């Protein structure tokens, strides 16, 4: 029984009791244990761990670069990765900590005590990961007494530096020493944090290749470009994502994987894995038959797949002529 439409052009009255919107579906936030590695990524991850280097992942959006960090943390039995989402204004020190100059400025002008500089420090992903490699008692001189930084004892962490290519050109260059030495300075406190080498954080860096990264930085990383999955792996991804047996997947998922492969061959922007999962979720929510292949009847949800007008026309045409061989 398909759920009633939330927006119905034929409905002329306001529904009694209002409308309850469903929880948002985020295709990128699947269970880490469902992540499917290809051989190359497995080798790259092993190489990065063997060499103690950051793992630089590139690839088309939606191919699972960010998800891999979650998978890696789960796979190694560590806590969730500490994430740093790079902005165009990010600087290298932001990766370790940020110093709230404005709050300190305000405090100084309103007569509030400013002698304890720790109050204005906030540690970010890599800085926090380095701190967590040390005993809690040894970092009390830099950490404010807050539950935010509480942890039981020295642990290893996975750090995700997401979309590093968003930042300025100097951002990766400024990280060279810190990433190799796993240490950083806090001039405001006159302190230097050096991570315990035995618990060196595992760093995963993603890039959308919007700008080239400097060679000096690349030299210090293990690199892997995640390709779009082929049809077989796509079937496995979809089956796991929607909780089916990957050896005997439903016809809808198999045909969707074939449709994805056909769409990849077009000259237009191909849909990503995450977009395909979102589209299938939409179809299932609207009562699509799990045992029927995708067809022209599924064209209504094409907006979840096609993000440009030419791509929309192409995918709609492809859907009309699509004959999956299941």
């Amino acid at each position, binding site marked *: 029984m398909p759920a009633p439409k939330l927006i119905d052009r034929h409905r002329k009255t306001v529904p009694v009791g209002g409308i309850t919107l469903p929880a948002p579906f985020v295709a990128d936030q699947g269970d880490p244990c469902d992540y499917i590695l290809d051989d*190359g990524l497995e*080798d*790259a991850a*092993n*190489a*990065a761990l*063997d*060499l103690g*280097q950051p*793992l630089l992942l*590139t*690839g088309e959006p939606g191919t699972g670069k960010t998800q891999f960090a979650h998978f890696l943390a789960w796979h190694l039995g560590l806590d969730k990765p500490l994430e740093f989402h790079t902005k165009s*204004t990010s600087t290298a020190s932001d990766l370790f900590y940020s110093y709230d*100059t*404005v709050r*300190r*400025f*305000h405090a*100084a*002008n*309103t*007569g509030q005590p*400013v002698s304890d500089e720790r109050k204005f420090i906030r540690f970010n992903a890599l800085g926090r990961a380095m701190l967590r490699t040390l005993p809690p008692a040894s970092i009390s001189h830099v950490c404010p007494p807050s539950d935010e930084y509480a942890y039981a004892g020295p642990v290893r962490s996975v750090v995700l530096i997401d979309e590093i290519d968003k930042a*300025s*050109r*100097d951002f990766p*260059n400024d990280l060279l*020493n810190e990433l190799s*030495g796993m*240490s950083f*300075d806090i*001039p*405001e406190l*006159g*302190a*230097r944090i050096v991570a315990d080498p035995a618990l060196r954080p595992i760093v995963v860096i993603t890039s959308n*290749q919007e700008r*080239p990264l*400097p*060679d*000096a930085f*690349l*030299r210090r990383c*293990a*690199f*892997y*470009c995640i390709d779009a999955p082929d049809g077989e792996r796509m079937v496995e991804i979809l089956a796991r994502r929607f909780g089916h047996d990957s050896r005997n997947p439903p016809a809808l998922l198999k045909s969707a994987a074939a449709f994805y492969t056909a769409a990849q061959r077009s000259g237009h922007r191909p849909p990503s894995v995450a977009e395909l999962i979102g589209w299938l979720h939409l179809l299932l929510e609207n009562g699509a038959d799990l045992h029927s292949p995708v067809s022209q009847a599924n064209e209504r949800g094409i907006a979840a797949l096609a993000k440009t007008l030419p791509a929309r026309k192409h995918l709609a045409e492809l859907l009309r002529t699509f004959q999956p061989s299941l």
Partner: protein
Amino acid sequence: MSLSAETSKRLIALCAYLRTQGIEIGPSRVIAAAHLLEARGLSLEGAQARSNALRLGPVLCRNADEQHLFKQLVVRWAPDGPAQEPPDDRSVPVIPWSGTGPRTLSWLGPTSVLLALLFLGGFGCWLYFGPVAAPPAAVQTATTSAPLVSSAEGNTMEVSNIRMFARPPPSAPDQKQGSPWGPWAGLAFFLVLFVTGLLWLRHNAFLERRRAAKGRHAVRLSADLHVPLDAVTAAMRTLGLSFRQRQRGFEHRLDVRKSAEATARHAGLFTGVYGAPRERRFLALVRRQAMHDHQAFIGEGLVAQLCRSGADVLTFRFDADANVVEPYAAQAGNGRQSTPHGVRTYPRIDDVLSANEQAECLLFCEPAALLDPLTGRLASWCRTIVDGGHHCTVFTVAPPHRWDSAREVLETEHIRVVAADAASINALARNQRIAAPVRRRALGDGALHEQYGLYQAAPPGAEVAAICDAICGELGYTGFQWVQACAIYPEIQWPLTNAVGALLVKDAEERARLLLRLADLVWFRKAYMPDWLRAALIARLDRKTGTELRAFFWNAFALELDELGKGNASIDVMRPSPLQAILRWLRVGLALSALAQGESYKEQLFARYLLGQKNPLSLRIPHRVMAAMHNALRGPVVVLASFCVTGAGLSMMYGAVASDTRTHVPTDVDAKVGFRGDSLVIAGIDRDTGAVIAARRDALTSQGQWEHVMSESIGTPKEVALSADGAYLIALEADGMRFVPTSNASVPLPNSNIAGATGKRQWLSVAPGRNGTVQRYLSLFLLGDGNMRADVADLAAVRQLGRVSYLLRNMPAPEAVALGRVDEMMLLMHQDRTVVLRPGEGGSVTVLQPENAPIKGRRRKIAWGRNGDLPIFAACSSAGTVVVWDVAQSRAILSHQADEAFVCNALAVSAGGRYIAVGSSDGRAILLDVGNPSLTVKLTDKGPPISDISFNEGHTQVALVTTDLATVVADLTPRKLRAGERH
């Protein structure tokens, strides 16, 4: 598990193969791949070679294209089955790096072979063209040799009669017609031998090592293209290699002309046109960041050396922005030096360049100084040089690992980076190639080069020890002792550094080598060393050196310090006689006791060190002790009014902001001044350059130095203000704000005040909350309907993008705006009156007009003070009127009329609201006392316009700054007059 020899060999072969196919693989990647193979126990032998090689992709590839290419190449390199080397590519050699290898005589053998070939060719031709002509019968035999060999008669022919290259005699023209191609074939044969030999020599880089000697020989390739001979030979070598590279099509082969041009660019560093000798002119630009910038001293010394060599050099200094440069006269010695003519005192760089076309620029600075710090691209002034077609070379004393990234950008612009040492300059002077910089050992944490080494707050003891160890590791123990010696004196000075260097390092060459490396340390670049580091370095001095240095400084006191750097830097250390020692001890003791409380801690430490106390620099004198000493020395406290009456009780301290160290001395700066603890901070907008500048002076004595905090262009700065504690400055731009900690980098903030201006005019006011008021911002908009809107936001509101708005109906436009405790009241100043707005409930506004004291002239400035709960405020005018109102009493409590030439420019009210300081546009400043209106103290006489005035927190000092950034600090501490001071 160690890597087998076969796997290592195959790995290197694989990497060489990948390099030939366009995947650049450096040594570090090869090492990483070997480590990975070793760690995983993988092998590149046997059936697993391909799959194992594919696992190396993450460490051998840098981008997606390389990753895909890598997969294809590995499949080709190791097809299924045992690994095979690619048949065609294995023969491609790795291009050897040559140029600075040791010279050997190994080129003699191949060259001899080549000469022998030449001799054979010449001898053959001589036989053919020379007087020894063959008899006709022999010629007949030779020219018909092919049919004869196959005949039976040919077997009887004598070999000695064959003259393959013999020319027929002129007397037998009929016989010559029978063999027209014989001589040419012979000549071609020897030519091929010669070219083959030449290529072979190039391939083995035998000629490469001779390139420096042939650098000046030019070859004309076309009408407008002259290239050095070595460029041609290098191109021929590359051409030869490209023929051997069979995988590539012909279109990928060498373009001789392009290659020759490219090689010529590299081969001739300073010469734009080859083949025609000409007199070259150099523009030497030395960056000087501070008065005692050691890098600049070295750069200027090298420039002087270049001048002495007879080169035609114009010398300039520059600071962060070289759009404006400062000419200076290098010590040219007996050489000649051109003086810039036809340009202003501080000329613009484009004027200099246009006056000196085709001059070559020699920049003595760090390579990063040529780049825009925000974009990472070439700075605008440097772009001007490059676009003008001027060849640029950067000389730096910084080690290569600090300019690797900058060099990439610079080399794309054909700017070379070389080591600034005597060898480079000598090579330049000899018109030869600049020597490649020697790579120095990298410092892992960069502690010796980063700015935080300059912070006043001491790091943990372990880090201080690590820094000392790093200095010792960088410079060696002798160099470390040198740094220790420089740390004794409170200031890092060039002559003193030279003098103690001459004392400690006797070998001149070693001293010069150490000085280059020492000058790269951050403390010497900035000519400042914090006390915590000085104390740590002094504590590590060994006893013998400490004794020598103490004696040296005693002697140095007897000399003028500035004289140390002149003449022979070697100073003999003489032990004083016991009587002299006692007298000196007494002298320093008296000097120490005479030190005032406000004077520098540094000098006290130095004096105590000279007295020979144990671990003297770690002794910090408690404030209470100093205060007690101060009172004991100065006598009982007297009230301010009493010495105001005398008019001579103020002790003044003057200081200009490093005016002699800046290449561009600003003359029109909207400057602000403030106190941060015991130090003085100034900030302002340089109207000439549009840059926001800030500086800090740590010690308020004549010995203190200004430390530049920032000097950078941040768009279109409109106004600058300092925070109450002097820790931050705020730069208001046209479309944003910037918070700049006075000891750190800037923090841009989104602007919430300026957006939404829909009216005709707009006023912006940044009112730093001095004297205990709250920091607020005020924006005023004149709306289209004739009303005015005031938007007020504090810092928290800026962060939350919130604000308080008032709609002020029928309110005439204000002339200027001052602000104090906006949640209670706001002050507007109009042409004819002053209005205090007191916001009430529901947006209502109460208007107070304390107008019982007329003001003559246009009102110029308003300042607020606190007197109980309600503020007092002061206003001054363009005609010398100063009026102070008490809001609680709603009346004027002070009215002062100066002469009409006293156009008020700056106004400050002390924290208690008692003292008023006023500055004028003609440089005069006065101090008024609200408690005694009849008293006026003159602070300064006429001079540049006063830009800002500020009291310190305890209103014991008042500082004023002029538009040329000169500062004056008056000490208001009550004291008795000393003997000899005039009333």
